[in-house]
């Protein structure tokens, strides 16, 4: 009797153990993804929405059952570090993520100063890094940057459809370029000037102003009476608004502006006084969308974050699509940990999400973008397709 009772208990225990093991096998395993961004400080306007985009994407993927890689189901979990908009804190955050052996992919920072501090050690550690800051272009495809991808189109890439569209839409023939005296501005001139000239637009004047300038009147006078029909300006909203406003004050300046910046805000107040203002919406037009995919995404974003769409929400969309693309690349690579294989798949695929995107062999993103326009007092956007 005692023996048979013992057998029954042992059988039950064995069945329970097997049941547990079976259920564990069926449950999705978790893939740890690192995320470092300036969630506080002056750069949080960029990185906070970007972080929301990653969270939102993985939340949707997990809710749909995760990804199937090598026949196994995986869900995503995020390990987040706040760079606080400071390079030293960004470097420390990167080291903390690198100390976790389970993290093989990191979503990174959108601004250059803290971005560099985080990206360089992560790149050297051969961990896949998906970032967005401008200076990343100098790292891509070079030793230490083989596993880096920049999710935003770089100037040479974005400039092609932008120049084509604004030249066509605004009928530009002769422009003057006015930018701050910084390295980024020199790169912008190198990217845009030949494209304008190729499109048949004369570029007789390129001027650089001292960063931090508030009084633009003297330098704007250089552009007076030069037969120009447009001004190409950049790339911060306060500079752009000051230039637009002071162009109206000093007179005889072309009132057609092409802005290498991501917002129409600098011209909104002056819409009725200027001829036109064109700017780059580096993803899709979220303020007055016409594409059903974009409209649906906005509704999901609002429901997920409990926030309204703002000018900076397009950073969320940038990283949202990038996170989905990562999941597809893991499925294609058959691994969630082999950073090299996943990076190779990312560089070889074309993803059709809320926006279309692909990476070149160095890791530079090519995406379709929308171009914002204020023309004759009306605001609208036009789509520029992926190259």
């Amino acid at each position, binding site marked *: 009797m005692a023996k048979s009772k013992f057998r029954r208990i042992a059988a039950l225990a064995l069945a329970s153990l097997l049941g547990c093991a079976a259920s564990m096998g069926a449950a999705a395993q978790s893939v740890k993804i690192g995320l470092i961004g300036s969630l506080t400080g*002056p750069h949080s306007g960029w990185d906070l929405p970007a972080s929301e985009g990653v969270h939102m994407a993985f939340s949707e993927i997990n809710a749909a059952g995760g990804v199937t890689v090598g026949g196994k189901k995986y869900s995503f979990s995020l390990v987040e570090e706040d760079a606080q908009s400071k390079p030293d804190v960004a470097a420390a955050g990167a080291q903390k993520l690198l100390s976790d052996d389970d993290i093989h992919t990191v979503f990174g920072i959108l601004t250059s100063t803290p971005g560099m501090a985080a990206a360089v050690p992560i790149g050297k550690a051969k961990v896949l890094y998906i970032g967005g800051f401008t200076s990343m272009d100098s790292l891509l495809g070079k030793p230490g940057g083989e596993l880096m991808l920049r999710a935003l189109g770089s100037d040479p890439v974005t400039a092609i459809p932008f120049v084509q569209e604004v030249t066509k839409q605004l009928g530009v023939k002769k422009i003057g370029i006015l930018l701050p005296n910084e390295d980024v501005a020199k790169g912008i001139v190198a990217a845009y000037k030949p494209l304008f000239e190729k499109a048949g637009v004369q570029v007789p004047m390129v001027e650089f102003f*001292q960063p*931090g300038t508030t*009084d633009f009147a*003297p330098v704007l*006078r250089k552009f007076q009476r030069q037969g120009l029909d447009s001004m190409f300006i950049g790339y911060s909203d*306060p500079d752009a*608004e000051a230039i637009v406003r002071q162009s*109206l*004050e000093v007179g005889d300046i072309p009132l057609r502006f092409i802005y290498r910046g991501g917002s129409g805000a600098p011209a909104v107040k002056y819409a009725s006084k200027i001829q036109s203002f064109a700017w780059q919406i580096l993803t899709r037009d979220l303020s007055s969308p016409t594409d059903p995919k974009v409209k649906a995404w906005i509704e999901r974003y609002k429901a997920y974050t409990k926030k309204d769409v703002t000018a900076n929400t397009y950073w969320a969309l940038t990283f949202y699509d990038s996170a989905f693309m990562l999941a597809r690349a893991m499925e294609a690579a058959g691994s969630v940990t082999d950073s090299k294989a996943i990076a190779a798949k990312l560089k070889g695929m074309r993803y059709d999400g809320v926006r279309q995107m692909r990476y070149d062999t160095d890791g530079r993103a090519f995406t379709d973008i929308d171009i914002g326009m204020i023309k004759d007092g009306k605001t609208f956007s036009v789509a520029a397709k992926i190259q």
Partner: protein
Amino acid sequence: MLLDIVQTAFDGLMVGGLYASVALGITLVFGLMGILNFAHGQMVMLGAYIAFYAVASGLGFWVGTALAMLAMGLFGALLERAIFRRTLVDPMAGLTVSLGLIMIIENLAAAWFTPDPRFMEPPLSGDFRLGPLALSSQRLLVLLLAAALITAFYLFLKRTRLGKAIRAMAQSRQGASLVGVKVTRVSAAIFMIGSALAGAAGALYASLFAISPFMGNTPLMKGFILAAFGGLGSVPGAIVAGALLGLAESFGSRYLSAAFRDGYGFMLLILTLLLMPNGLFGARKGRI
């Protein structure tokens, strides 16, 4: 070419008038009281925000400018009474305190107003033609207001009793005290007037340029250049130096490189101090 030179000169004088209105406050407080108040630029910033919010709430530019002057005058009196009066005997302590004030005021302003730059609606907009000249209406208004402010201040110093007391103190603090000038009260008045001038400069600045919590450093730097350039404590010196600095920056940016804008002022300052070590009008202390 001549047209271009006249327009550039006009731009330079306008911005020079703004610089001079900041420099007057600095030269008063530093030149006469020996207080190196680095927070003067932050008073310009606060004055700009007061004018901005006054205009945004519908009170208008003129009320906004008056409020900026009044509020900064009171703020200056408060700072003098609570802090700088106690540091008069130790200039290093005063300097350190004013550096601390920069941090406190800037960060409080960033928390309160947000760091985003703002543009105030000016009372005048666009340009107007004077023969072949295209001149900015608001810039001309700012130039006239700065000139009126400087003239009024100059007349105040020359014609009023308090002005005479300030001039007496400038020559000799001890001597003025001996002939019955209440130096403590006059010192407070100097600080109050200097701060009110900063408030007025802030309002004028806001009518042309973007304002932000961190905007105070440029006017402060220019103000100190002018105070040294014109001669410490010299009111005509600050005015002439303001005009020269504005012209140097405008002509340099227009005909040479706009990327070197601030450099022209420093070149002018170094050259002047090499030739005239006490500045343009600063032959001796207390020359106002």
